[in-house]
């Protein structure tokens, strides 16, 4: 049974012309970690606030464990939230911050004490319990904010971009920490972020939002490999997918497309058969960096591979591999090259295209063309 069901959630802010949320439907299973991801202004924070009860929705319903909570006050929903700014009470010590919600709910003193200790142990913040938030580092504050949520043992945890105020290294550490914690506690989590890596690494399932509409809901792998549309394809993955608009051709060998390098060299690439209906029509080819690499790195037993020599415009070594930029049809295209075989910019490199995994989009609807 789903822990949280969102049914056609709609929200229009007073005085606004457009709907901020245009009918969102999501089910979150018990113990599931769901991330809401999307560019700023996509409505993900509004959706989160609506779940928490901080914003009243204008349509639809929210059900938790079979109970409709749409009209409930926040405190009656039994939902905890970790804020981007942590929102720690500045005049209260860490201990009081964690205990506040319990006290309000009338938990006996001893139980509170025990609960605070438990949470503090869990998050390794026991030595900080008597400090004021202002004396803590960003990472410590973050832990306290989580501790405050954990202490309540709510049905659902909401995280509103909790890591975005931390520096890069700490962010990765905390990410792992959160993941560990979730694996231990098996709590139901809805996690908002604009960082797709965070979304991918943490989530059981990802919900991609744009302009108040759910673009795709699926596991990280689904979203990455089979994005529903151009937006999701471009949003998920780093460096992001490159898009080239071109025409499907039919030759003796089968279906193919032709790309042109920066020096005018042409290269024919085979494409899957399900595009047969699209021969002579224009499609958008979506190709991820790892689909173009040195021939060694691509398993050539796949049928749909092709290689050619192309000029490398820019190289960006990341350590394990090198991101190289080539130009196809006048568009910058990223390739992921093996760091063991360095290439220099301005030189030609022999590159292999793995056309098994590339995706195609209908230029008119921007939807992915599905194999049927």
């Amino acid at each position: 049974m789903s822990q949280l069901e969102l049914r056609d959630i709609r929200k229009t802010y007073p005085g606004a012309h457009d709907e901020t949320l245009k009918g969102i439907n999501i089910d979150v299973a018990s113990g599931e970690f769901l991330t809401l991801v999307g560019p700023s202004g996509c409505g993900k924070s509004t959706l989160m606030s609506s779940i928490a009860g901080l914003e009243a929705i204008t349509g639809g319903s929210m059900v938790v464990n079979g109970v409709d909570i749409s009209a409930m006050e926040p405190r009656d929903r039994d939902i905890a939230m970790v804020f981007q700014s942590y929102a720690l009470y500045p005049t209260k010590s860490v201990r009081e911050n964690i205990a506040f919600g319990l006290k309000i709910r009338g938990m006996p003193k001893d139980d509170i004490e025990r609960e605070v200790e438990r949470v503090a142990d869990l998050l390794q913040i026991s030595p900080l319990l008597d400090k004021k938030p202002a004396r803590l580092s960003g990472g410590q504050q973050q832990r306290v904010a989580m501790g405050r949520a954990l202490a309540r043992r709510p049905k659902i945890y909401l995280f509103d971009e909790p890591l975005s105020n931390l520096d890069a290294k700490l962010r990765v550490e905390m990410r792992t920490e959160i993941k560990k914690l979730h694996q231990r506690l098996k709590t139901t989590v809805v996690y908002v972020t604009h960082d797709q890596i965070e979304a991918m690494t943490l989530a059981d399932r990802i919900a991609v939002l744009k302009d108040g509409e759910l673009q795709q809901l699926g596991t990280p792998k689904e979203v990455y490999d089979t994005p529903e549309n151009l937006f999701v394809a471009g949003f998920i993955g780093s460096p992001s997918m490159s898009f080239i608009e071109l025409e499907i051709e039919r030759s003796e060998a089968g279906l193919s497309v032709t790309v042109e390098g920066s020096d005018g060299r042409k290269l024919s690439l085979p494409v899957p058969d399900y595009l047969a209906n699209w021969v002579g029509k224009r499609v958008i080819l979506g190709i991820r960096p790892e689909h173009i690499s040195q021939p060694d790195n691509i398993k050539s037993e796949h049928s749909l591979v092709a290689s050619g020599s192309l000029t490398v415009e820019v190289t960006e070594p990341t350590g394990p591999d090198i991101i190289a930029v080539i130009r196809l049809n006048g568009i910058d295209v990223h390739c992921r090259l093996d760091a063991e075989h360095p290439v220099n910019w301005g030189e030609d490199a022999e590159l292999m295209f793995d056309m098994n995994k590339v995706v195609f989009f209908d230029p008119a609807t921007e939807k992915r063309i599905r194999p049927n």
Partner: protein
Amino acid sequence: MTDVVRRGVRPSRIAIYGVLLLACLVYLIPLIIMLITSFKTPMDIRSSNLLALPTDWTTIGWTKAWAEACTGVQCEGVKGFFWNSFKMAVPAVLISTLLGAFNGYVLSKWKFRGADLMFGMLLFGCFVPFQVVLLPMAQTLGMLGMANTTPGLVLVHVTYGVAFTTLFFRNYYVAIPDALIKAARLDGAGFFTIFFRILLPMSTPIIMVSLIWQFTQIWNDFLFGVVFSSGESQPITVALNNLVNTSTGVKEYNVDMAAAMIAALPTLVVYIVAGKYFIRGLTAGSEKG
């Protein structure tokens, strides 16, 4: 610092100190004059210039102002009116500050339809000249049965002070992140719990501002004090006025000045002791607001 820089800086620093000290002098002179005059004899005042030191120092002005000068048929100085002023100012200051805090809280964190309009109308309320409201207010208080009572006077001060206190608190609370309120709501705190347990403990600077501002305004007020107080509970400003003003009597400037100093003492002390909190709090709101 290199020699070149030091040579370049010196004259300008002297100029800065010069300007600052000159300004000090300008700000201080009136106070000095008041003090000097309060220690002179009336004859001395008539004959010597303002800044000349008294030929014989005398505290007669002060003792007279405190305990002997007439403010009506009583000639017991202003000492009794001190207490009256406190009785009026303390509740008025506290109530208007509390109301202002509530209003600021609602107008920044619990906005409702029309909240901005209400705030705008409150702001405009800061600029209504008080002379306009004397008669209608008198009539209203009469209808309420509060005419010429201390509660009535307190009500008047609260009415015309709440606009400013609301402005202070609203600007201060606007700068406090909304997330804090949301977190508290999720923690199960209600409207009042959030206010008293979360916001109020954070509000010390702006509470200081509101208290100091309101205390100064109410303590120094004459118009409302004279019109809405009853005869025996007149505030000290009215006593001062009665003492200083004479239609056809003799003026004793030393007594006048001493009385003025006595009347100003509480607010002066407040400013000198708590002035820095005042400024800190005011800017805490306006900076980010």
